């Protein structure tokens, strides 16, 4: 019974640990929690354990996906769409439009110059 009463005394503060860690706790409750942490070694220790646990989780960081994921997705879509998408690409699909336009213009100029020099 005495232990339960002891736990009840700390519970309201422990319930605020997560918001306190995130910095989203209301100012009055933050002040009350900080005052309690200053005086209560048990809660200070428990809060430190929570802070350390969350820090360890955060340290996992973002894992890197396999580099060929896009090719695998493209192959899956190609297969499921019966070849409608992500098929073998034609020259025009692989080369940007700007490059194709520049090549076409160069050919036209060459033909024009050749025709002019011939005449």
């Amino acid at each position, binding site marked *: 019974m005495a232990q339960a009463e002891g736990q009840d005394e700390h519970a309201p503060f422990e319930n605020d640990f997560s918001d306190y860690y995130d910095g989203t706790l209301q100012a009055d409750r933050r002040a009350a929690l900080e005052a309690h942490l200053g005086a209560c070694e048990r809660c200070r220790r428990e809060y430190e354990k929570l802070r350390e646990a969350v820090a360890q989780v955060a340290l996992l960081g*973002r894992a890197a996906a396999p580099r060929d*994921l896009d090719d695998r997705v493209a192959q899956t*879509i190609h297969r499921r769409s019966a070849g409608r998408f992500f098929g073998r690409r034609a020259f025009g699909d692989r080369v940007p439009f700007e490059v194709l336009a520049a090549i076409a213009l160069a050919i036209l100029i060459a033909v024009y110059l050749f025709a002019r020099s011939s005449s």
Partner: protein
Amino acid sequence: VSLRERLLVRRLRERDERAFRELIDDYRDRVYSLLLRMLGSKEEAEDIAQEVFVTVFKSIEQFRGESKLSTWLYRVAVNHCKNRVKYLARRHDRATGALDETAERQAAAQGGEPVGAGRIPAPDRALEGAETERIVQAAIASLEEDHRLVVVLRDIEELSYEEICAITSLPEGTVKSRLHRARLALKEKLGKLM
């Protein structure tokens, strides 16, 4: 929503394959990492990540631009993830327990390499770091699915509460409450192990 994102979405709706590869380039790590931390298995995460992007390709018309593209993508990933967990449960695998075992088997098969470690720690700390990562991943895997999700979104993906609410369709109070309980559980699990 940025101009680049609007243009990207327009190209995706036109089934522009280059745009789709750009989308995968932009989001592959986010989607894969979320799935890896949720499912605890590289193979599962790779398979479901593929399905997520296939769904995005097929369903891009359903994205109405009311949220960020990343939010919508996370939502698609979370839905796939939940379905996968349910599927595994239906196969009489206790989802988290089975995935935890898979994670441990993989780590053992890879000489202690942590599941999903895409980063290479400094050589002198590699062993210690790998063991710590394995323990933390196992602690996350042991959480209830709903608690695991908010921890991954908040403490690994570092999303705001607003984004988490948009992804999970939960009110902020529920997200905070689940996160609080998840963190307390992690405190107990990691406090004993570390």
